[in-house]
């Protein structure tokens, strides 16, 4: 029983990181009704930023969060102008296909360069021992950082002028345009931040688990599940959804082989989509 509780607590820690990853996808969806299918690859980009920067310059893994944040933003804005700008307001088919095709190009180039070998970044942080169980230090640090970054996003959206503009555009693009918000620029900034969040969460996930170029697919799926649990277009809901997924993974781990986790999660995803199309924890109307 104690082992079960420890596993669930560890699930909470990892779940916060999943929540952060899902915030990226849900921010973009909430603002422009576009699902960013490059999300998984951007998470992997964060992982590779972590790997390359730590192995090349020997800096602390957590310092790579800053270049990942900035780099992700730049890449995101560029992506917006290349693949998304013409698709905003068009049928969902088109934006899905355009981000999907960009993803193919990125995955194709990356597998050509790095292959599909497993990468692992060793991070040593002392764990926290409670009785017979030790919680890994990296999990605790990643969870705390994820919570801090999520709080930062919340502050940005609520308190800054640009954040308020993002919310205004999400709420009603035409009205925002009428009162003088430069909506196109705001859309590109929002997309940039969405990708930035994916990269940053990729750095954090990279400190927890080994990864390959193709790992992104399973994190993309996890992000979908989290967003569906938390309600589409709602960053706070995403964090709660992430916790729910983490707890579920933690609760299932002692009983089921790890390789079945994805099947269970997908079945849950489909059941939740059917039972609660509006999200379990938050309604869309309260989004952003």
């Amino acid at each position: 029983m104690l082992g079960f509780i420890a596993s669930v607590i560890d699930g909470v820690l990892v779940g916060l990181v999943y929540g952060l990853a899902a915030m990226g996808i849900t921010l973009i969806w909430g603002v422009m009704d576009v699902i960013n299918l490059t999300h998984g690859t951007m998470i992997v980009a964060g992982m590779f930023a972590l790997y390359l920067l730590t192995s090349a310059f020997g800096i602390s893994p957590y310092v790579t969060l800053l270049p990942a944040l900035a780099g992700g933003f730049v890449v995101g804005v560029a992506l917006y102008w290349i693949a998304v700008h013409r698709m905003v307001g068009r049928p969902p088919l088109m934006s899905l296909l355009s981000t999907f095709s960009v993803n193919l190009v990125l995955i194709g180039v990356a597998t050509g360069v790095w292959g599909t070998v497993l990468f692992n970044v060793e991070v040593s942080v002392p764990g926290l021992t409670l009785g017979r169980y030790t919680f890994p230090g990296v999990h605790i640090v990643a969870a705390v950082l994820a919570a801090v970054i999520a709080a930062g996003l919340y502050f940005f959206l609520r308190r800054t002028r640009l954040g308020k503009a993002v919310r205004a555009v999400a709420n009603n693009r035409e009205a925002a345009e009428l009162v003088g918000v430069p909506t196109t620029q705001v859309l590109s900034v929002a997309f940039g931040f969405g990708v930035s969040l994916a990269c940053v969460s990729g750095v954090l996930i990279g400190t927890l688990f080994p990864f390959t170029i193709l790992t992104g697919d399973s994190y993309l799926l996890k992000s979908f599940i989290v967003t569906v649990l938390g309600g589409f277009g709602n960053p706070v809901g995403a964090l709660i959804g992430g916790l729910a997924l983490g707890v579920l993974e933690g609760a299932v781990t002692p009983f089921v082989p790890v390789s079945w986790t994805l099947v269970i999660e997908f079945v849950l995803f489909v059941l939740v989509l059917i039972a609660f199309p509006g999200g379990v924890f938050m309604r869309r109307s309260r989004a952003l």
Partner: protein
Amino acid sequence: MPDIVRRPFFSIIALVIAIFALAPLWGNDVDLRESLVLAAVYITLASNLNLMLGYTGYVNFGSVVFFGLGGYICVWLVSAHDWPLGWSLLAAGLGVSALAFVFGAGILRLRGHFFALATIGIVEAVQAFASNFDPWGGASGIYLSTEVFAPLGGPRRALWVIYFAMIAVMGLSLYLSYAIKTSKFGLGLLAIGQNEDAAAILGVPTPRYKALVYSASAFLPAIAGGLYFFKSAFIQPTDAFDLTLSTEAIVIAMLGGQGTVTGVAFGAYLYEQLRGYLLTSDTFSHFQLVIAGALLLIIVLFFPSGLMGWLYARFPRLQRVLE
């Protein structure tokens, strides 16, 4: 005689099938046969994907699941239960179709985005399932012994039998696309693609139609998968549920022109030729996905109606003959 048989397009499809069937027989050309069998697989997958993508405007990123599951069911029935190939193929088609209907009836009550997300997940989930499911050999898959080819007259003759069966599946796919497009059912689907709310208000039973077309689009790809993996005498999760094939089907459907029968078939043939060239070229053989992706992006951004859209705009009269 039903009306669609008398239209010229019906005969055009028959002619294409005849060319596919006879061309490699001429001079017993095995290389041509292997190239055409792949083209037939692409045409089958893309035509059936087009039923969803082109007619109703719902993206199915997981069409390879039908192909792979059909392959698994067929190979498993042949190897573990000694079923004859014909019955195994039928069981694969019906089984996958039924699964698709049950899954679709639930998930297709949702709108475009959510369905697309679910279809991405299904590839990952089914692949994880097949890798863990012991009766299907787990991650190492199932191998067939050469004895399974004996009822078809030995390996050499079996390859020809499989080839003609594949051409038949391809032909049925084209006729299915055509028959659905000209039917009341097809009009309902096209209405869903234009404006789902308006279609529902005008009396199209949208959830049922979507689930039906999803299930219909699973039947022939599953049989094609059965034939394909029976032919290779070997199936494993990473091959059977390779996302590349889903991707290629989408690229083909968009290249030829979503919603058209001719365009998709022609796009499949073009893509197969392009792929053959890319695979043999030293520079591009590792970058097949990159080129497929770049091609798709250009089509989506600049030519969303594909080759047929371009042709129709140039020669409006073609619309009467070529569907």
